[in-house]
């Protein structure tokens, strides 16, 4: 029977590992940032996180002086600008994009996606001087500017 054939090597493997060995196993890579799930106030992220502190209400000039009328206006302006920027990223998906990076590096790739904080871009067919890289992640901090046609 196929199920028995599968179970036998599994049993052997369990016998090899003693519980003591398992408890001393280390995490192979340090976890830099583990996002928390949505909380009760449902902002979707932790108010004490560096990201919230960088982008949250306290980062707005009008937020610091508790000017509620201005705060709302500024938030609205930010919403409009963020939406437009995110839509510009959407418009860029699948298009060839030219990236101007530091040290006079100038590469072309097909844009794929960006992470939520716009820290990394995922690209395909990255044309480097050493050849084409099928898939790659570009750190946004390494990019000075990028251009594409619409």
């Amino acid at each position: 029977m196929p199920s028995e054939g599968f179970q036998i090597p599994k049993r052997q493997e369990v016998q090899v590992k003693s519980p003591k060995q398992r408890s001393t196993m280390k995490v192979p890579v340090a976890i830099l940032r583990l996002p928390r799930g949505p909380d009760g106030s449902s902002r979707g992220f932790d108010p004490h996180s560096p990201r919230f502190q960088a982008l949250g209400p306290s980062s707005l000039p009008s937020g610091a002086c508790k000017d509620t009328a201005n705060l709302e206006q500024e938030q609205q302006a930010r919403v409009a600008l963020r939406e437009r920027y995110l839509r510009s990223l959407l418009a860029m998906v699948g298009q060839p994009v030219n990236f101007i990076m530091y040290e006079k590096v100038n590469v072309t790739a097909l844009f794929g996606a960006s992470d939520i904080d716009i820290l990394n871009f995922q690209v395909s067919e990255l044309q480097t001087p050493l050849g084409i890289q099928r898939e790659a992640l570009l750190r946004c901090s390494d990019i000075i500017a990028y251009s594409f046609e619409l």
Partner: protein
Amino acid sequence: FIQTLYESLILDSILLANPLENGKVSVLVVLGHAVQDIEIVTERDDEIKEKLAHLFMAGKSQTYNQEELDRRKNRLKNWLEKNHIPVREQGESQTTLCVAGVLTIDPPYGPEDCNSSNEIILCRVQGLIQSYLALQQ
């Protein structure tokens, strides 16, 4: 060579749109950390401002009248309620649907009109709307 200084936003990145001769638009984006100084050379007229506002809003060209939008809104609201999704109307003239207080759906109430800072909820609701639209066709 850059004709229009366009917009800035999160991380203060600057988008520069430059119309090409073949009708396309070349867009250059300078990332916020690389921006040293901004100088507005001239303010553009309203026609160009309007054009820029719709630059990335492709596919939003279809227009609906008020009656049609109301009908779309109510049908979607019923569908979401049927799926046990808490939804209410908000905004100045109650045109925006708000799901569980964390996601908004603006007219014309398609999957692309959802806004949320929570990508998990956003993905679920967009999926729901897509299946709802597929069901209607």
